[in-house]
């Protein structure tokens, strides 16, 4: 076994055998699930029901404004604009006489903010009340008939398909969004965790002065490369364990779904396969499971996981060598690392911010550009890929991005190697950026 192999083996084994690796591998997914569940729970529980007093001068809103569990309209004349708060109402809606053909302003007075979603909801309810009132007064239609037409009109549902020339694939925007977000987040997280691990490893070797002993046996560059590859392999192992964990959890979860329900789902699946477009049979629950299964089925997992592994490795190599270079120049004082790290952590954080924008508009120019530049491409491209290749991300973009990232990490590794070989044996004063650039690009 050659020397770089020995170094990779040591870096890999010492970390895999460490208890913290096992704990973080199994605890992190659990914590993420708990965190998401917690936020969803709080979001649902935190939604307050509003009582809104209505002071209506037209007299007909009482009949049309619909109350439900989230907003309750109170028309009692005892409540006015002064005492609504004491009467347990969160706001008062003041509607003056509305005249046809002109815009009249109606007002909402409140003491505490109702929240944006509630205001939108309120506005919709008021305008549909006006529409209902006008339809009812201008035509001879009865209230009951109007309501039944409304409920009968709910017969169409939008499904999106991504156009791939010959065949159209049913796409699920929600799933693409979720998978893209998860991929981007995971790359962001892994780059930080494992980049910092590389830096700490280098600092450990420098401060414990092992570096000098090793460097007398191995040149600094293979030493740095061995460390980066070994730690990258740990990250990859962790990722693969997570995939395994998810598959196991999915199988376990399926076992909890009642048998009859699964039968129904299977029936729908075979009906769908035979080209039967009408798949109305089946209960609501079965339909939902079917939808999830369908969209998971149509997502190109091999491509996503393949790209994820490439972008994880590429992004990790790109940043890890920079982290290694920083680790090699700092001394015992961890504070020094903080200030030197800023220029490396900033692009990662920016990439994350760009990703949150890019995922809303995966074909937009910001998304396209950011997925080309090696600084941000691992995070941003991974957020775009689940939307579909080659529809949202054309092949040329993917190939260009992969090529640029490969070139990028070769360059950063080369540059970092030159800083590293000088820094690792240098004790004392913290070098300036100017010094480091000189090491990197001169002689």
């Amino acid at each position, binding site marked *: 076994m050659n020397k770089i192999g020995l170094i990779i083996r040591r870096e890999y084994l010492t970390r895999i055998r460490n208890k913290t690796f096992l704990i973080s591998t199994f605890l992190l997914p659990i914590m993420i699930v708990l965190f998401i569940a917690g936020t969803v729970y709080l979001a649902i529980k935190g939604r307050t029901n509003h009582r809104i007093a209505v002071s209506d001068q037209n007299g007909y809103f009482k009949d049309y404004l619909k109350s439900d569990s989230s907003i309750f309209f109170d028309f009692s004349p005892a409540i006015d604009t002064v005492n609504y708060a004491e009467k347990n109402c969160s706001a008062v809606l003041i509607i003056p006489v509305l005249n046809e053909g002109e815009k009249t302003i109606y007002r909402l007075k409140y003491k505490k903010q109702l929240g944006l979603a509630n205001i939108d909801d309120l506005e919709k309810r008021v305008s549909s009340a006006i529409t209902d009132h006008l339809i009812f007064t201008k035509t001879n239609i009865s209230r009951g008939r109007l309501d039944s037409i409304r409920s009968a009109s709910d017969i169409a549902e939008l499904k999106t398909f991504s156009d791939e020339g010959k065949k159209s694939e049913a796409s699920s925007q929600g799933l693409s969004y979720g998978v893209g977000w998860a991929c981007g987040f995971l790359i962001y997280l892994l780059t930080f965790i494992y980049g910092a691990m590389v830096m700490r490893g280098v600092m450990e070797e420098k401060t414990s002065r092992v570096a000098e*002993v090793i460097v007398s046996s191995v040149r600094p560059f293979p030493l740095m490369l061995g460390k980066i590859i070994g730690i990258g392999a740990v990250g990859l192992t962790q990722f693969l364990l997570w995939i395994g964990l998810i598959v196991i959890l999915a199988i376990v979860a399926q076992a909890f779904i009642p048998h009859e329900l699964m039968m129904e789902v299977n029936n729908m699946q075979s009906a769908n396969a035979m080209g039967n477009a009408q798949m109305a049979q089946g209960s609501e629950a079965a339909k939902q499971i079917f939808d999830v299964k369908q969209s998971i089925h149509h997502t190109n997992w091999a491509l996503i996981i393949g790209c994820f592994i490439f972008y994880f490795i590429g992004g990790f190599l790109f940043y890890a060598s920079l982290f290694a270079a920083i680790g090699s120049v700092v001394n015992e004082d961890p504070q020094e690392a903080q200030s030197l790290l800023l220029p490396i952590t900033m692009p990662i954080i920016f990439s994350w911010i760009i990703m949150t924008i890019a995922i809303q508009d995966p074909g937009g120019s910001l998304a396209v550009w950011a997925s080309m530049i090696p600084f941000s491409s691992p995070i941003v491209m991974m957020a775009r890929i689940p939307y579909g290749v080659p529809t949202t991300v054309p092949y040329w973009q993917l190939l260009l991005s992969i090529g640029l990232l490969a070139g990028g990490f070769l360059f950063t590794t080369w540059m970092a190697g030159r800083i590293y070989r000088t820094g690792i044996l240098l004790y004392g004063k913290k070098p300036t950026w100017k010094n480091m650039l000189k090491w990197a690009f001169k002689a």
Partner: protein
Amino acid sequence: MLEVTRLKKYFTTQKAVDDISFSVEKGTIFGLLGPNGAGKTTLIRMITGIFYPDEGSIRLNGKKFNPDEDSSHIGYMPEERGLYKKMKIGEQALYFARLKGLSASEAVIQVKDWFVRFEMQSWWNKKIEDLSKGMAQKLQFVITVLHRPELIILDEPFSGLDPVNANLIKDEIFRLAAQGSSIIFSTHRMEQVEEICNHIILLNKGKKILDGTVANVKQEFKENLFRISATPFPKQATPELFDVIAKYDDGMTIRIKEGYKPNDVLRYFIDQQSNISSFTESLPSLNEIFIKLVEGTSLSRQFQPTQS
């Protein structure tokens, strides 16, 4: 065995090693001496392949030194000891042995052999954190010589060791030299050098200022000092023959003047009816030579521009 010719290494603010040549014979223990900052570490780092020299050549066994291939022939123990704190000792020793090119099975044999020799078998599953400083030192020495290097470079190998362990290491150094390894021994502790080294060089400010065997160097710097014990002492001193440097209860140290020989002094004492019980030349210690040569040059090295 090792031949260093006109080696130079300039840093931006210092001529760390400035035109140094020397050679180390097979099986000798070679002392590399010098005050702090004389350029010893830089010189060693070039010989171990950590730094490339700016100029000059290093030849090992007659061939040009190649860091990638020759690192397996060299064992280096730096002054600042370094081991992985969290790694088990046995594994760590195996790792370093394999980095030096031993095969997996050979590494196990060598490590076990040395661990038995130094009575360290019980340390195998311990970590460096669990060891005392002296124990870590012993381990570091073992790691340095595990792969039977032809050239062993030891930078202050005895610092922090108790006399028992220091002797243990010293005996190993003699044994390795007897088996044909050449040893470069860098230190400021002159009494150890006199005891151990065959040949020394002294560096100061990046230049070699002394080169020779310990005996030759002492001869070169002798000041015609003799210690004589006799009873009774001659009543009067004879200033044309010698000066008295120091007097003791049982004798004195004298410096024989230019143009006279020790026999002249002895004849004088005999003529004076004095019974001589001992008469020995007192050679300067390396410590005195070291101080004499280095003293006067500014104590700490000044930074100087390398462009002249």
